[in-house]
């Protein structure tokens, strides 16, 4: 059966997969895939450059939200924000890393579901506050942490922000995803209330919270076991910038 669409542009997908599997630099892989895809679709050299240039210009807004808060966060870090976040959580004797992250997950998912997606994020919340607090709480319970566990806690803090954001924002009626779905279905001749789409998002949003919260709840027991089995840390993993390596 001959395809009525061209399959050549799929070469770009193959380039991406091969590039990531072979662990080439992602910048090279992505730009290579863009060039290969454009050529495979019959773009000329100028059209390819135009497509890349116009696309890159149009997507500047993605980086904007990362760059703008950096000066503030950097200044506060210079004055010990991360160290203070670590010390602050240790005042709560019973706080654990898992409990802290469950509270953050609930807050992030709930506020995102109300459309307040700006209350959080990796630059303004995870790096300066949530990750140091998770490390501080774990340190108060288990003593100095080896780097491997530090990195694991930080990665989980970032993952918790993502899970809360993704599964919260998609049950907010005015969010882009619901609008996109309603518009798409409307154009296909199916009238659907955005509220109905948001309603059917609820079971998955609830399940995602439960699964991730269970994983975080088990984190404390896992940490206790790993810290008991691990050899004691000779030098606490406090690096150049004070919080960690």
């Amino acid at each position, binding site marked *: 059966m001959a395809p009525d669409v061209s399959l050549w542009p799929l070469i770009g997908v193959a380039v991406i997969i091969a590039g990531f599997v072979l662990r080439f630099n992602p*910048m090279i892989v992505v730009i290579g895939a863009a060039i290969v895809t454009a050529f495979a679709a019959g773009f000329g050299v100028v059209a390819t450059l135009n497509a*890349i240039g116009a696309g890159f*210009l149009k997507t*500047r807004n993605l980086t904007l939200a990362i760059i703008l808060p950096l000066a503030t966060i950097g200044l506060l870090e210079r*004055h010990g924000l991360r160290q*203070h976040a670590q010390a602050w959580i240790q005042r709560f004797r019973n706080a654990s890393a898992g409990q802290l992250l469950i509270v953050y997950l609930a807050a992030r998912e709930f506020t995102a579901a109300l459309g307040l997606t700006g209350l959080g994020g*990796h630059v303004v919340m995870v790096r300066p506050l949530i990750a140091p607090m998770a490390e501080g709480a774990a340190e108060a319970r288990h003593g100095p942490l080896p780097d491997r566990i530090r990195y694991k806690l930080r990665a989980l803090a970032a993952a918790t922000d993502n899970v809360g954001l993704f599964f919260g924002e998609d049950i907010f009626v005015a969010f882009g995803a619901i609008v*996109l779905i309603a518009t798409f*279905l409307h154009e296909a001749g199916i009238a659907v209330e955005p509220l109905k789409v948001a309603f059917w998002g609820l079971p998955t949003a609830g399940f995602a919270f439960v*699964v991730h919260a269970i994983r975080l709840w088990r984190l404390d027991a896992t940490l206790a076991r790993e810290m008991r089995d691990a050899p004691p840390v000779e030098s606490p993993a406090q690096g150049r910038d004070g919080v960690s390596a």
Partner: protein
Amino acid sequence: MIFSLAHLYVLAGLVLACVAAMTAIDRTNPRRFGSAFFWGFYALLFLAGDLLPPAWIGGGVIAMAVVAGLHRVTPGQHAAPTVEEYVARARRLGNKLFLPALAIPLVAVVASLLANKGMVAGVPLLDAGNSTLAAVGMSSVVALALACWLTRETPAQGVREARRLVDAMSWALVLPQLLATLGLVFSDAGVGKSVAWLATHYIAMDIRFLAVAVYVLGMALFTVIMGNGFAAFPVMTGGVGLPVLVGVFHANPAAMAAIGMFSGYCGTLMTPMAANFNIVPAALLELPDKNGVIRAQWPTAMAVLVFNLFLLYFLLPAP
């Protein structure tokens, strides 16, 4: 308006231009000229991108990628205080340190809620079309002023600290934008149509469970490839969801679409292509493993994906 997207581009461009200039004169940076070109050209795109011909920008972007790929984007050395100094400073300001940090999200949320009402001397405060971004921009300026006042530092020191963080992230800061560009090239070139054609022509769609699996897993897989659920949704829903699940098996369109989109989000949690959610935080948190965040979240994503598969299957009306 007072805070528009164009103003914020200039602001970000100025920060990046300072980063580039400081890098160019930083003799401690082993690759200072490559790094300065990378940040300098990027700054130019924020400051004057709309004035340049797109083909030139395309050429410059390819050059940026090559410079980064050849390891020519390196950090300078940043004089960091010692641990004791940090702790002493933290003790001086105490909980006040939290104020500017929390001001960024709080001011942004309040500003975006008031976006359409806020006027100063008859001029709207925020760009209505991009109120969320404009609000983040405004709150960053407010928080920087607050932070400078609290710490008695100058905005120039703020820019130096911004450079420290930009250096820590390196080219990963630009990767989300490059991936979004690739997504646009993919859709111009019709990659989505090719994938939908393959999926619908080689899989037996008359088996209920298989049809649901193709839609749910296809959304996830296609999002893994494109890095964005929004790109996968029209392709998979137009190619499989509407004609097969709704057309043949009478699925509820709202349930199918909502569960389908969430399946795409599971894909987002598992792919390095969604760089702003997965690769940028790994760089920002200084993890040695660029895929560390993905490793931390894939078990959640897989569990939710399996849940979605069975949820949508059991929601299909009985034959």
